[in-house]
C-alpha cells in the first residue's frame, strides 16, 4: 500500500523514536499491555503494522464487499440502529405494560425475555418450575399468554425479537398464530427468533433435545420461513452467551461464526439453496469492556462472514454475504459494587457497538447484578443509547475508525486468530463433535478461570471490585420484585386453560405433530395447528421429547 521510499523513511524514524523512548526515565506504567482477551498491544501503531494490507481486498467501501466498514453505504446517516431493550418478567400482563412503557419512551423494537420454565419447555405448573415462574422473564404457557403479551401492540408495525432457543419452533408458531389473530399475515411479520441451539450446548445450557433432532427442527424453520416469512430472521447466531460464559473476544468471534457455518451447512444438506436462506441469518454479539478490541471484533466478523459465504459456500446474492447483528453490552462486566458505575461501563460498550456498526442494540441496566432491572434503571439505559445516537456525533459518517492503524491491525489479528480456531475445529471433526467432546466448553472454562485469577492478582483493575473499593456500601436503586402471586396466577391460568379448550382437537393436533416429528414432514404447520388448539408449550415439548429424547449435560474438566 505504501511506496518503498515511504517505508524506509518510516522505519528510520521509528528507530529514532524507539531510541529516544529508551532514554526517557520511568517510561511505562507496565511491562506489557494486552487487550482484555490477552492479545499483546504494541507501544505504537503505524502504517508498518498494516503492511501488506490491500484497501480494496480487506476493507472496501461501506455497503460493499467484504463489508468490513459496514453493511450499508449510508450506515447511521440513513437509519439509526434499532434500540431494542430485552425485557420481560412476571405474568404476560405485566410485561405487556412494560412494553408499552418502553415504546412510549422512544424504544423502536421489542425483545422478549422469557422465564426459565418457558425457555426449558416446561409449563408453569411443572414441578421443576417451582420458584422460577416469571422470575427472570415472562411466563408463557400457551397462545393465550402470547395474545396478552402483545395486546394493543401492532405486530404488523413493530419488530419483535424473541430470545428462545430449545422450543424456538413452538414460539415461531405462536407468533404466527398471534399475528393471524390481529389480522397480520405471516408474510408481513418481521422480527427475530434466537433459535441458536448450538451456543446452548456450548455456553448457556438451556437445551431440551439432543443436537441432531434440534438441528432438524431448525432446518424445518429455515424451510418454512424461506417460503412463508420473507421478513423474519428465524435465527440469531449468538456469541453473547459464549462471551458471558467467560470466552475471550477471539473465542466469541470464532465459535459463533463456526456455529454460523454449521447452520449454513445444515441448510444446504437439507436441500435449500444457500441464497434462499442465507439472507435471513443474523447474529448477536457481546460488547465488552475493551473498546478497540470489540470494534475490531465486529469489523472482522463482517469480513470473515462475507468471504466464507462467497468463496466457500458459493453464495451469489450480496444479501447472503452480509453479517447483520444485534449487540448487547456485557452483563458479566457489571459490578454489584457501586452499581451506578455500570451506567458508565454500559455507555462505553454501547459506543463500541455503534462504532462497530451494529444493527440493533440493548444496553444493560445498572441494577442487573442485584435483580431484574427496575423502571428507572431501564430508562437510563435507553437514554444512554439516545445520547450516543443524538449527542455524540459518532453517527455522522460510516466506520469513523476505519483506517486507524491500531484498529486495522487489531481487526487483522482477530481474523487470523479466528481462522486458527476454524482449522482446529475442523481438525477435531466439526462443531457437533467439538460440543460432544467438550472442546468449546473447556476452552471457555479455562478463559473464565484465567480472567478471574488476573483480577485476583490485580493484573486487571475492575473499579469498585479490586481497586477503589468502598466499604459499607448502601444500595440506592429501587429494585424490581416479582410477587409470588404471579406464579400462583400463572399456574391457575394454565390449569383452567386445559379444562376450557377443546380436548379432542388438542389431542388430534399433538398426534399429527408426533407423526411429522418422527417422519420427514415439516413440523411447522403441525406446530401452528397445536398452538391454535391451545395446546400448552409443555404438552408440545413432551410429544417431541418422546420422539427425540432429551439431552444430558456432558462431562467437563
Amino acid at each position, binding site marked *: 500500500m505504501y511506496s518503498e521510499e515511504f517505508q524506509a523513511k518510516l522505519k528510520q524514524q521509528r528507530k529514532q523514536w524507539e531510541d529516544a523512548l529508551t532514554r526517557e526515565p520511568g517510561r511505562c506504567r507496565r511491562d506489557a499491555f494486552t487487550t482484555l482477551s490477552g492479545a499483546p498491544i504494541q507501544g505504537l501503531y503505524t502504517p508498518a503494522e498494516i503492511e501488506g494490507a490491500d484497501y480494496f481486498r480487506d476493507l472496501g467501501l461501506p455497503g460493499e464487499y467484504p463489508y468490513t466498514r459496514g453493511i450499508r453505504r449510508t450506515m447511521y446517516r440513513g437509519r439509526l440502529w434499532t434500540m431494542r431493550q430485552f425485557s420481560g418478567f412476571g405474568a404476560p400482563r405485566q410485561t405487556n405494560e412494560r412494553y408499552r412503557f418502553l415504546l412510549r419512551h422512544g424504544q423502536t423494537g421489542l425483545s422478549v425475555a422469557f422465564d426459565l420454565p418457558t425457555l426449558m419447555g416446561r409449563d408453569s405448573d411443572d414441578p421443576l418450575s417451582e420458584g422460577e415462574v416469571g422470575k427472570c422473564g415472562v411466563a408463557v404457557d400457551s397462545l393465550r399468554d402470547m395474545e396478552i403479551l402483545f395486546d394493543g401492540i401492532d405486530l404488523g408495525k413493530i419488530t419483535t425479537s424473541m430470545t428462545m432457543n430449545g422450543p424456538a419452533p413452538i414460539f415461531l408458531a405462536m407468533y404466527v398464530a398471534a399475528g393471524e389473530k390481529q389480522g397480520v399475515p405471516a408474510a408481513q411479520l418481521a422480527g427475530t427468533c434466537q433459535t441458536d441451539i448450538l451456543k446452548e450446548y456450548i455456553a448457556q445450557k438451556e437445551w431440551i433435545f439432543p443436537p441432531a433432532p434440534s438441528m432438524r427442527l431448525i432446518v424445518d424453520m429455515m424451510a418454512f420461513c424461506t417460503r412463508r416469512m420473507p421478513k423474519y430472521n428465524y435465527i440469531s447466531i449468538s456469541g453473547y452467551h459464549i462471551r458471558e460464559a467467560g470466552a475471550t473476544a477471539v473465542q466469541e468471534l470464532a465459535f459463533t461464526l463456526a456455529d454460523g457455518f454449521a447452520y449454513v451447512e445444515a441448510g444446504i444438506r437439507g436441500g435449500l439453496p444457500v441464497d434462499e436462506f442465507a439472507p435471513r441469518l443474523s447474529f448477536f454479539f457481546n460488547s465488552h469492556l475493551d473498546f478497540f478490541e470489540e470494534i475490531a471484533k465486529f469489523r472482522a466478523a463482517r469480513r470473515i462472514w462475507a468471504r466464507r459465504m462467497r468463496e466457500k459456500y458459493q453464495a451469489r446474492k450480496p444479501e447472503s454475504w452480509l453479517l447483520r447483528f444485534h449487540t448487547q453490552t456485557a452483563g458479566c462486566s457489571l459490578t454489584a459494587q457501586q452499581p451506578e458505575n455500570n451506567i458508565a461501563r454500559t455507555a462505553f460498550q454501547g459506543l463500541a457497538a455503534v462504532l462497530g456498526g451494529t444493527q440493533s442494540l440493548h444496553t444493560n441496566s445498572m441494577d442487573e447484578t442485584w435483580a431484574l432491572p427496575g423502571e428507572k434503571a431501564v430508562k437510563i439505559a435507553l437514554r444512554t443509547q439516545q445520547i450516543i445516537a443524538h449527542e455524540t456525533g459518532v453517527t455522522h459518517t460510516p466506520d469513523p475508525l476505519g483506517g486507524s492503524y491500531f484498529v486495522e491491525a487489531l481487526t487483522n489479528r482477530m481474523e487470523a486468530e479466528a481462522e486458527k480456531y476454524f482449522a482446529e475445529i475442523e481438525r477435531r471433526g466439526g462443531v457437533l463433535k467439538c460440543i460432544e467432546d467438550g472442546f468449546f466448553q473447556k476452552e471457555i472454562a479455562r478463559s473464565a478461570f484465567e480472567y478471574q485469577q488476573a483480577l485476583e492478582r490485580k493484573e486487571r483493575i475492575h473499579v469498585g471490585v479490586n481497586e477503589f473499593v468502598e466499604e459499607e456500601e448502601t444500595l440506592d436503586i429501587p429494585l424490581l420484585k416479582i410477587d409470588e402471586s404471579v406464579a400462583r396466577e400463572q399456574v391457575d391460568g394454565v390449569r383452567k386453560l386445559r379444562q376450557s379448550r377443546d380436548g379432542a382437537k388438542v389431542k388430534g393436533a399433538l398426534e399429527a405433530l408426533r407423526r411429522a416429528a418422527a417422519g420427514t414432514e415439516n413440523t411447522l404447520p403441525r406446530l401452528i395447528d397445536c398452538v391454535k388448539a391451545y395446546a400448552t408449550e409443555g404438552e408440545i415439548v413432551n410429544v417431541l421429547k418422546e420422539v427425540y429424547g432429551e439431552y*444430558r*449435560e456432558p*462431562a*467437563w*474438566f
Partner: protein
Amino acid sequence: MSLLEKFFAGDVQALSSLITEVESRSDGCQAIVAAIYPRTGRACKLGITGPPGAGKSSLVDRFAGELAAESRRVGIIAVDPTSPFSGGAFLGDRVRMRSLAGNENVYIRSMASRGAQGGLSVATFDACLVLDAFGKDWIIMETVGVGQIELDVAQHADTVVVALSPESGDSIQASKAGLMEIGDVFVVNKADREGATNLVTQLNMTLEVRRKNEPWSYPVLATVATTGQGVAELGQAVRRHREFLGRHDRLAVRRKTQLKSQLRKILEDRIRATVSRRFHSDPDWDKLADRVYLKQETPYGAADRILAAWRS
C-alpha cells in the same frame, strides 16, 4: 449413640461418616473394621476401569440403574485423581450418574486418590467392607486406569470390567497400562463412533492367548452408554462371570489372593509409617547418620542395625 450403633441401625449419615473415617485412615479405622468384619463377604464386587473419557461413569449409571430396578442395593465408589499441586480434587462423576439421583437403592461416594502415599488402595478396600456390612448387594468401584494405584483398586473386585472407547490411542494405552491383563470383561463404549468395530476385532485378537489358557471366555462387548445400547448384555456378561467364579471355588481363591495382597499393603503402610515416624524422632538414627558420615559404617550396615534392633 455411637457411629457404629447408628450404622448398624441403618443410618445413611453414619455410613457416610464411617467411610470418611476409613478414607482418612483415622485412629478409629481398625476398630471400625473389627466391628463390621464378621458381617462382610456377601456383596458382589465389580471394578470398572479404563482410560479417561471412555464413558465409565455413564456405564455405571446405566448398570447400577438396572440393578436397582431389580431391587438390588448398590453402593458405588467413584475415584478421581487428586491434584498433585494443591492436594485438592475435582470429583465430577455424579454429573454422569444423574439418573441414579433420588434412587433409594443406590448410594454413591466420590473419593479422591489423595496421592501415592494416601493409602487409596487400603482405604477403598475398607470402604467396600463398610458398604458390604451395611447390606449392599453390589459394590461398584470406578477408577481411571492410568496408574498402579488405580489398577490396585480395580483388583479388589470379583469381576473387573475394562472400558475403552474407539478414540485414538485407547487400545495402545490399555496395553501399556496393563489393562488387558486385569480385565474379565471388556467393553468398547461409544460404539456408534468411527473405529469401534476395528477396536473390537483388535481386542479379540489380543485376548486369544488368555482364552486358550484359561477356561473363561473374556467377552468383548460393544455399548453406547448414552442410549443404553449393549448395557443389558454387559450385565449378562458380568453375571455369567459371577457364576463362573461360583463354580470350582474360584471366588474363594480370588478373594484369598486379594486378602493376601491387602495384608501386604497394610504391613507396607505400617512399616512405612514407623520408618517415617522414627526418621523424624529417633535420636539413634541421628547417631547412626553421624557414624555413616565418619565412614565408621556403611549406609547398608546402619540399616541392618536398625532392622536387627526391631527384631529383638
